[in-house]
């Protein structure tokens, strides 16, 4: 690990010192795209428990959309410092699976389930890299770390049996700010003198430890999440434009 760090620093210094005289493409850009959750966060498990609560790590996060604004000032030909602000949402996926678990757990005629979305914003400064490959085409990369604020979806479950509405219980939304990081690589293509298009792929990660409130859970059966401490990670694919200064 320490050898990898040393090599990275040497590469960085060689690139920086050798190109200090020239400045890279400082920019501000906007982009948007699709986010794909990974790990337990993106799983959806059927949970039936008739005789006790079950805390399940599956987060039921669907692929989502996001938008971001970022910019960087290049102090050398290849390297710059900058920052990213992004906001995105992930709907609750496979809600039928979630609902069927409660239906089986309580052995009732009908369960109506309503779920909101994960909402997530990030503010991350970090290092940017840009290297021209061919004429107008460049490869870009970024390594960012900062804060990620996430709120979990509110999930309402209404139980009906023998035409009697047995009420609604709610897994409340919870919010948490945690350390997060983002690493990405992509392509930049200059379509105008001061305007570039960017195609980026990023990996993002944070692990907030949510404390989740639940209302009206009277009997011990079914899925119950009081605490959620799973990695909220995934891949973002985005397309955007950037205004390049000084061109």
């Amino acid at each position, binding site marked *: 690990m320490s050898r990898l760090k040393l090599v990275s620093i040497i590469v960085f210094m060689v690139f920086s010192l050798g190109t200090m005289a020239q400045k890279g493409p400082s920019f501000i850009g906007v982009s*948007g795209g699709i986010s794909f959750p990974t790990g337990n966060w993106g799983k959806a498990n059927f949970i039936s428990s008739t005789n006790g609560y079950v805390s399940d790590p599956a987060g039921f996060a669907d692929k989502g959309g*996001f938008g971001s604004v970022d910019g960087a000032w290049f102090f050398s030909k290849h390297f710059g410092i900058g920052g990213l602000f992004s906001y995105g949402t992930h709907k609750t996926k496979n809600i039928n699976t979630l609902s069927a678990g409660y239906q089986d757990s*309580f052995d009732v005629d009908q*369960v109506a389930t309503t779920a909101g979305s994960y909402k997530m914003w990030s503010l991350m400064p970090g290092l940017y890299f840009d290297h021209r490959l061919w004429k107008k085409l460049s490869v870009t990369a970024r390594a960012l770390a900062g804060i990620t604020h996430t709120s979990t979806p509110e999930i309402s479950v209404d139980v009906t049996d023998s035409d009697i509405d047995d009420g609604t219980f709610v897994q409340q939304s919870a919010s948490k700010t945690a350390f997060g990081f983002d690493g990405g690589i992509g392509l930049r293509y200059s379509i105008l003198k001061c305007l570039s298009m960017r195609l980026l792929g990023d990996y993002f990660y944070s692990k907030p430890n949510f404390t989740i409130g639940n209302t009206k859970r009277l009997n*011990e*059966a079914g899925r119950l999440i009081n605490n959620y401490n799973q990695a909220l990670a995934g891949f973002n694919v985005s397309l955007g434009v950037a205004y390049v200064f000084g061109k």
Partner: protein
Amino acid sequence: MKKSNFSFRQLVYGSGIAFLMIMAGCNKKESTVTPAPPGNEFLTTVELKLTNAADATDTMTAIWRQLDPSGNASPDTSKAILNLKTNATYNAQVVILDETQTPAVNVTDEIHDRVNYHLFYFQPTPIPASSLVISNTSADIPTSDGTAVSATGPYLNLVVSRTDLDNNNPPLQVGLMDNFVTGAASNGWLRVVLRHQPNVKNGTFDPGSTDLDVNYKININ
């Protein structure tokens, strides 16, 4: 490179509009309604198995049976009778079967797995109003749910109490296991009701719905 007509201001305005569109499009909630799958068991047969606490050889079983799942046919109550001794205590067990299937399915096991939201009630009648106890630990059924109190008697001298607990926190009674305590010689009826109280069980009768509601003839001699 040709001169660009694009300005930084245009970029900001365009981005703002796109961002608002993303925000508006992503705030819808997901909803679904899940019905029960077909194939639930029928509760066709309810057995009360009693053992005299003072004499393990003194056992009896009363059987209420309704083999028509539609409920249109009259139940077979020819064996729904308990002949109890005076001033005795019986350990009782409730057994529920689905005899529409071959072999018969013991539904008691399923109820045992789901004790956290099932609750049995046992209502002896005739009963004076002063003996009707309505609380979250009593097996009596409120008058609003069908118990007729009698001002004159003669009364059935039987008290039923549940002895088993579920896995809720704090635990609540269930009623698959019970104590029957008799007094002086008397006759009457015992109404047995199973309440299904999904996520609403609190020890009282009213929440939820009724899974079964049957009656037994009681003779205490």
